[in-house]
């Protein structure tokens, strides 16, 4: 039963290879995209922290995105 499932009546190599390539490629793209997103979030926070208090307040007042990135970083920490 299990060997039938693995060999797929002689087509196992093609079937498993297809599924593996698809899932491996998708996983690589997912982790690469996530890494880039985290990198930009980090860089944005660094730039935000580098501002003077007055500038920072102004940015936070005008940008909801900045508020959300900052609050997300607080939640993580």
């Amino acid at each position, binding site marked *: 039963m299990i060997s039938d499932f693995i060999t797929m009546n002689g087509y196992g190599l093609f079937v498993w290879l*297809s*599924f593996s390539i698809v899932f491996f490629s998708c996983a690589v793209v997912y982790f690469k995209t996530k890494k880039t*997103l985290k990198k930009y979030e980090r860089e944005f926070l660094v730039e935000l922290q580098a501002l003077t208090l007055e500038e920072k307040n102004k940015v936070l007042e005008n940008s909801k995105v900045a508020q959300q990135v900052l609050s997300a970083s607080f939640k993580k920490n």
Partner: protein
Amino acid sequence: MFKFFSSSNIYFLIQKLIKFINSVFFLILVIGLTFALILSPPDYLQGDAVRIMYVHVPSAWIGLACFSLITLLSVLNFIFKIKNFYFINKSIAPIGLLFTCLAIVTGSLWGQPTWGTWWAWDARLTSMLVLMLFYIFLILSFKLLNKKESIIKVSSIIAVTGSINLPIIKYSVEWWTTLHQPASIKITGSSSIHSEMLLPLMVMLLVFLLYAALIFLMKYKTEIIRIKKKNIKRD
């Protein structure tokens, strides 16, 4: 109405959608794989090799759908100058390229046991290869050009030119004698695929669509942060 589509609201919505997709994705993936690899029956001619269809067909459909969407948004952006469309296109193009490449590779792996060859210069296969090249040109235009106006112009030209290839892909199996089989699933008219195979195919399509949406949302979120980072002093 337009205020709703501001980057802040979109950013908030993206976060909610990413959370939602993450919460349902693995459950649907497990259901899809169970159907595709265990519960669906083997084909009377192709045997278990038919299971490759559950990753090949959704990949090809998404590859085509992404390019159609890019063309539509490029034309709309060119006419109405909606800057969000440019960022949407930039986020969709890598997803389309990924799925087009996967459709070609899995098609090749399906072709060997069923046709006895990995590749043939058949109309459907060649037109899919051309689609992949258009995706590469499109991504290169986003990466290599500096001025946003030039990027929009060049990418729109590539998208519109590439869209000529879309009906060729769709009807290649009818217009020419090809190794590739004609479409088994038709939106209008009756499909020749059995429901026991159609259901797993639709579940796998949903899995792929959720994955594509997740990657798109993450890429679009990155674009929003990148712009906000650039304009931080102006905010």
